[in-house]
């Protein structure tokens, strides 16, 4: 079973990897976006870690909704509302339980990903974070490691796609040949699960 501490470790691990990979995310955002994805997420997850240190929620749902709110309040751009909604909706779906199973997390995370698709209007294949998150959700029932692999493969698979959502969509065919920064950061979030589980 996964307790609030697991979810706190998940957020902390994600914050650390976003820190480590910020320059790479920004470099990916440079040819097809506006070169700030890394620094924006870095600002958001730094705020998440600070908020979790200040008030430690006692439930998995509480940790994720607090994290989501922080992202909405600090990131800006499209990433703020999208990542914020992902975590908030996942957290809400987990409810007030003190501990949840991996299956419950997988189910709640699917609700979060659905909410992101509704909010952003993106579907798989549009070259967005959805291209990493949907395969990850599908694999999450197997294991965290399988979800991580699926997310990473999903992110890489955005390279040949033409963007149809977000700022990269304005480039039309010129967006082809670049890996999507949002899908790449989503893969970091999923990889954080493996780290939190100590696998």
């Amino acid at each position, binding site marked *: 079973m996964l307790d609030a501490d697991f979810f706190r470790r998940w957020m902390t691990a994600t914050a650390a990897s976003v820190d480590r990979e910020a320059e790479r995310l920004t470099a990916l955002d440079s040819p097809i976006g506006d070169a700030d994805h890394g*620094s924006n997420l870095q600002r958001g997850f730094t705020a998440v870690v600070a908020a979790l240190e200040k008030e430690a929620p006692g439930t998995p749902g509480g940790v994720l909704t607090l994290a989501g709110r922080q992202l909405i309040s600090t990131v*800006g751009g499209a990433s703020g509302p999208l990542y914020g909604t992902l975590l908030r909706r996942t957290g809400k779906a987990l409810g007030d339980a003190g501990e949840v199973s991996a299956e419950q997390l997988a189910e709640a995370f699917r609700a979060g990903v659905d909410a992101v698709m509704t909010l952003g209007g993106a579907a798989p294949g549009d070259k967005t974070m959805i291209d990493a998150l949907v395969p990850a959700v599908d694999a999450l029932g197997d294991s965290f490691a399988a979800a991580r692999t699926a997310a990473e493969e999903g992110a890489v698979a955005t390279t040949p796609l033409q963007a149809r959502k977000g700022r990269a969509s*304005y480039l039309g065919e010129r967006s082809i040949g670049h890996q999507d920064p949002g899908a790449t950061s989503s893969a970091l979030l999923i990889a954080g699960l493996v780290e939190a589980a100590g696998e």
Partner: protein
Amino acid sequence: MKMLINVPETVVADALRGLAAAHPELTVDVENRVIVRRDAPVAGQVGLISGGGSGHEPLHGGFVGPGMLSAACPGEVFTSPVPDQMLRAAAAVDGGAGVLFIVKNYTGDVLNFDMAAEMAEDEGIQVAKVLVNDDVAVTDSLYTAGRRGTGATLFVEKIAGAAAAEGMPLERVEAIARQVNESSRSFGIALSACSTPAKGSPTFDLPPGELELGIGIHGEPGRERRAMMTSGEIAEAAVEAVVEDLQPRNPVLVLVNGMGATPLLELYGFNAEVHRVLAQRGVPVARVLVGNYVTSLDMAGASLTLCQVDEELLRLYDAPVKTPGLRWGV
């Protein structure tokens, strides 16, 4: 890349402190990033709120003041502000007649303003929204996030601001803002890429002998790259793109807008060419604005915006305005 900054992390806050020092007629909340006209809220008057990423100055903070915006919410450089900022702004400027959010059509701006509108309505503030999407370079709107909001934002903010100043109700101010947007089209050209403070180097590579047609205002490349053209050839391409799409039947407001690093000498020369081409096409010009209004940091280049106006829109455009970036009739 040399920049007149301290560190990238404080660029926006530093600029806001400087704006406050230069314009005591504005209330600048540096910590929460909200710029409000000092006499807000004006009782019975619709509050106009806009915002977006920083780096487009004087848009939007430079357009706060009587006759234009009531408040502006600057985000990080090229990153939309967060809902908390807009909620604060709405609370500060609502004089009982509601507020109008003026939103440029970028996914981030739209999502954050939508969230803010929900939160403001929860607090009993009446909110209307208008989306600015004037950029004709984005053609395939079915498979993109739609047309970008660029130069027309100035016309929407100015004309809707005058309507609000006259005491028109929220539905009417919103309808006028929508009419201005629907009557406006823009097209942008980049001669160089811009450099964001966070990255410190050009956001895309544009060789000296080439230009980009159809650019946005975030350092994103355009849809087409060509060998360098003359000012006259660029004016022909820009006017054609805008006029073909707008099909103006009335006189137009002309905005020849610098992207930040193109001198006025060049912008006025470009304006002359724009006028030549408009005259050839039989498009009458009502008013002209030349300068850096909707910029993209240190990008060289220009954008052209045309807005066709009827008598009422022209009267509202001519109405007095007193802001750091736009001022006449006072």
